[in-house]
């Protein structure tokens, strides 16, 4: 059998197309190059830190090695980000739905504007607010939580006197990632084709049922993307956590006690000023691990989005 010769007519090259495809190629490769450079730097500087003789690293506590040093930080990072996401995501979806499908137009515009504004607040400000205002204000409710829900390990106590605990940090993080998740969710909810909204309504759906059968399934990939952006920000957030949380390298699930884990990014920020020599490499190695965590989280999100591609409504 000979395969028939496939003749592809050569598409005529237009100057506009050429300029566009060249510039797209350049910016695409630039992004890859920058990413590769960052990864290369992290590996070059970080890997020696990973395998350094523990004796020579002064930021380790007695007898600690790299793994023992970094595992609690990984835990703290994931724990804080997950808590923040759990608090922020439902709220963000609710606000986005309110803006896109319930609020009168005027109110919706105002609310959207405020949310966008919130996204522009620098994280130091959130840190200051969390440490100086929120922590003190929320401490009494921690006491209440311990008294009434103390049987849940998360609220076992003993309660921190300052209120600067994991829960406070997670709330600050939740407030910080709320705007981005809300903004993206609102955008995708608004793009639900009216054709399908009307299909649901004509079947006798109430407004909430219409949202459940059409708006949410349509918006799902977008909401996940927004959540991942938020999660990425929560994972990497440095200043706010460093300022709010008085933590150390421990694995503790208690959210309101005085002993709290620390996150990778906050740990780097707190230790870096005094770090010297091989210590710097150790901190960079933790940065490498944060980089890897973020990559993994993003791949998981991508996997979730792609899994039901056939049903996404994009085709």
């Amino acid at each position: 059998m000979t395969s028939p010769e496939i003749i592809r007519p050569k598409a005529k090259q237009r100057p506009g197309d050429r300029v566009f495809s060249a510039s797209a190629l350049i910016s695409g490769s630039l992004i890859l190059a920058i990413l590769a450079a960052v990864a290369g730097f992290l590996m070059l500087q970080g890997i020696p830190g990973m395998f350094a003789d523990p004796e020579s690293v002064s930021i380790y506590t007695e007898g600690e090695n790299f793994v023992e040093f970094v595992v609690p930080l990984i835990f703290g990072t994931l724990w804080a980000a997950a808590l923040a996401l759990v608090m922020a995501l439902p709220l963000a979806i609710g606000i986005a739905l309110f803006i896109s499908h319930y609020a009168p137009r005027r109110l919706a515009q105002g609310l959207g504007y405020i949310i966008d504004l919130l996204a522009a607040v620098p994280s130091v400000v959130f840190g200051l607010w969390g440490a100086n205002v929120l922590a003190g204000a929320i401490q009494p409710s921690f006491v209440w939580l311990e008294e009434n829900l103390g049987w849940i390990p998360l609220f076992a106590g003993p309660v921190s006197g300052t209120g600067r605990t994991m829960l406070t940090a997670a709330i600050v993080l939740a407030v910080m990632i709320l705007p981005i998740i809300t903004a993206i969710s609102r955008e995708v909810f608004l793009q639900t084709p009216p054709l399908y909204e009307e299909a649901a309504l004509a079947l006798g759906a109430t407004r909430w049922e219409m949202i459940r059968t059409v708006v949410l399934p349509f918006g799902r990939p977008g909401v996940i993307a927004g959540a991942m952006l938020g999660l990425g920000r929560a994972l990497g957030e440095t200043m706010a956590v460093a300022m709010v949380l008085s933590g150390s390298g421990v694995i503790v699930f208690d959210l309101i006690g005085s002993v709290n884990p620390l996150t990778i990014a906050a740990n780097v920020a707190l230790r870096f000023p005094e770090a010297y020599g091989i210590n710097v490499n150790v901190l960079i190695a933790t940065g490498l691990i944060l980089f890897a965590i973020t990559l993994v989280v993003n791949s998981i999100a991508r996997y979730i989005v792609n899994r039901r591609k056939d049903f996404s409504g994009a085709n």
Partner: protein
Amino acid sequence: MSKRIEVNDLDVYYSKFKAVEGVNLVIEPRSVTALIGPSGCGKSTFIRTLNRMHEVIPGAWVDGEVLVDGNNLYGPGVDPVRVRRQVGMVFQRPNPFPTMSIRDNVLAGVKLNNQRISKSDADELVEKSLKGANLWNEVKDRLDRPGNGLSGGQQQRLCIARAIAVEPEVILMDEPCSALDPISTLAIEDLIEELKQDYTIVIVTHNMQQASRVSDRTAFFNIAGTGKPGKLIEVDDTATIFSNPSIKDTEDYVSGKFG
């Protein structure tokens, strides 16, 4: 199951713009009524008032009465959601939910309002509805595939299956064949013929042959000029409208002299 519709003095508005004026119309049960008329005369606007879909558009409202078996759809305390379960609708562009499988599309209406349905009942209903829409044989092996993987004509029949699955009393169709090829169109027309046994059907069409093929009664709408409201000019038996209408404009329109 099917019901009589009586429209009394109906005016239909988009905010301040009066799109349709003074419609009086009776639609008998188990009949097919075709709405014809030039573009922009308000056929879509009018048909959407029959299941209260008109008011979904912001600022849109209605003045007048639509009685279904004597009950005013626009009476105080009438829930539009209930109305839409009684009066189903098929749109111009096929719109099966792309996020759902074929099976779930058929069941979409039934699963609303927290109604529970056992798997065997659901299977039965899916088969019955798809058979009712003449689609069963084509999709029975791929009920779990997405609904928008079908051809346009199949999608439109899926939409019909979805509409009849909730057992409405009336089915409204706004140009259901305008996006379809002649073969699919014939399939839908045959289907309308069958559905007439059980349902009251109102169909908007630009296709004169289609109106004369499928409908028992035909209503001609016209518009005096842009910005003016559309009006119901004449309604009569389809044969009369196409052979011997009493109004000159109707005759001009059906014979292709304008529109």
